[in-house]
């Protein structure tokens, strides 16, 4: 049971990565792989602040802000300097590796002694349950597990709602239109380059927020923790699209969150069934590969079927 709860909680935390990847890959059609660096950046920034006894809420906000800044860098490289989007992401991601090491001062820092959002959630949970273990469908769960799950869910729900509203405002709609048809939005007097920069900033801000929450959940920040984040996020987005089957905004956002949770559950099950953790990234990459080529393959299979004979 605690394995299931843990997977759900991780799924909600990883939803932030999925939402960020949804913005860059789906809304802007921009293959932004800054995420691998910015998720660690968020964790490193928040970790460093937490170790220095900064308020966890402020530290989390600091994590978001650092990712936002990283996104501005990638966006600026890609638009103002006309560097290929993929390369711009690689450059920033690579640079961030050193930045992250500098921020943390070493390759990982432990947050076990610091007060974090997790300890906040735990305290609230204990206060609400008076420290008694909870019973869910006959299983005993601790207040800590339950409060972390509820807190991460509330956090994601809030972020999803804010995103849903944001992308229907004047600014947010202009951003979506930039990804859809940049010729059109320029003709309507909008600076599409600024839209891309801002969009990548928001995307990487969310991703860094995910890294921040992950570090506080697992109790440490590590310079390697961001590796594979883009592919994980993409896998979640793809699963989400398969679940909700549409690209409508509200459903897509819900789908990305659902996809992330489902993906974490699948990972937990696979690990339980004996998947070597070392193979996890390979399996994920293979999964994304299959999901990317599946639509094309299906179409080809369909057209190969013999049609009516023309006279």
């Amino acid at each position, binding site marked *: 049971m605690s394995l299931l709860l843990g997977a759900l909680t991780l799924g909600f935390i990883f939803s932030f990565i999925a939402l960020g990847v949804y913005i860059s890959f789906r809304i802007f059609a921009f293959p932004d792989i800054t995420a691998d660096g910015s998720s660690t950046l968020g964790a490193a920034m928040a970790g460093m602040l937490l170790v220095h006894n900064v308020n966890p809420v402020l530290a989390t906000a600091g994590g978001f802000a650092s990712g936002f800044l990283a996104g501005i860098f990638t966006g600026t490289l890609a638009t103002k300097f006309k560097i290929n989007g993929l390369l711009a992401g690689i450059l920033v991601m690579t640079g961030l590796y050193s930045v992250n090491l500098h921020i943390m001062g070493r390759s990982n820092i432990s947050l076990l002694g610091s007060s974090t959002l997790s300890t906040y959630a735990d305290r609230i949970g204990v206060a609400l349950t008076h420290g008694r273990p909870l019973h869910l469908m006959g299983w005993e769960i601790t207040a800590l597990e339950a409060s972390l799950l509820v807190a991460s869910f509330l956090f994601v729900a809030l972020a999803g709602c804010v995103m849903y509203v*944001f992308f229907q405002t*004047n*600014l947010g709609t202009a951003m979506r239109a930039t990804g859809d*048809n940049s010729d059109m939005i320029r*003709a309507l007097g909008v600076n599409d380059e600024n839209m891309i920069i801002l969009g990548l900033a928001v995307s990487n801000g969310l991703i860094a927020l995910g890294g921040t929450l992950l570090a506080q959940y697992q109790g440490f920040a590590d310079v390697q923790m961001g590796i594979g984040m883009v592919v994980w996020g993409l896998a979640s987005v793809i699963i989400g699209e398969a679940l909700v089957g549409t690209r409508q905004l509200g459903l897509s956002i819900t789908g990305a969150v659902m996809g992330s949770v489902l993906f974490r559950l699948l990972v937990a099950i696979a690990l339980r069934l004996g998947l070597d953790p070392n193979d996890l990234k390979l399996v994920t990459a293979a999964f994304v590969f299959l999901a990317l080529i599946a639509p094309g393959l299906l179409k080809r299979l369909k057209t190969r079927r013999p049609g009516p004979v023309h006279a």
Partner: protein
Amino acid sequence: MLEICSINKTFNSGTPNELRALQNVSLTVNDESFVIIIGTNGSGKSTLLNAVAGSFYVDSGKISLGGSDVTRWPEYHRGKFIGRVFQNPFTGTAANMSIAENLALAAHRGRPRRLDWLLRHNLVRQFRDRVCQLNMGLENRLKNPIGSLSGGQRQALTLLMATWLRPELLLLDEHTAALDPKSADQVIALTDTIVRRDKLTTLMVTHSMQQATNLGDRLIMMHRGQIIHDFRGAEKKRIRVDDLLARFEEVRRAELLDESAAEMLRRAYV
């Protein structure tokens, strides 16, 4: 008023594919004037429109719009003052977004994009009224993605978007060329109505001699990156399709003459 002062544009400069698309083109378009541009293939009609819109910067010369020098203004900056309808119906609208969202983006042309709610009720009501006037049955489909519409419907909406806020200048780049004849007629009728009603300063490129003679108060003919004829006033009103075809024939003959002269010289000297 649009003033184009001897602009030049060469594509692929210094390569075997060099194309002198615009050669010393000058043109002054008065306010509320509706100018039709025709020309042979590759004569620079669309290039002229794109130069004005800012899709690229001209190599030399000056473009000013409403008294400001816009020569070095980026495309999006000019977009605040210029309404455009493109040849390809896919270019003017965002396919995955709804009709209402597309119109709303256009209704905020040139204004800062802030965190205010886009689809306000009174705005949507205006959309419904104006879309209803198109007689295309789209007023009840405002929430549908624009990609689900036909090319004619998309061009009609793009026209509506381009003129929602009165633009300083309206650029129509063969906006009916990709449509079936019936939709093309509809869009042309709509164009004429809107341009007359709002007294818009308009540049319209077309391949249709019919449109060229029926519409507008001034007609410009381009060839090889230059303006070769400029009919206006009574002369424009008098001009018929046959006259235009005769002018094109003239151009063609002159071209043949050029080629045969070149051939003669080659034989004599090489």
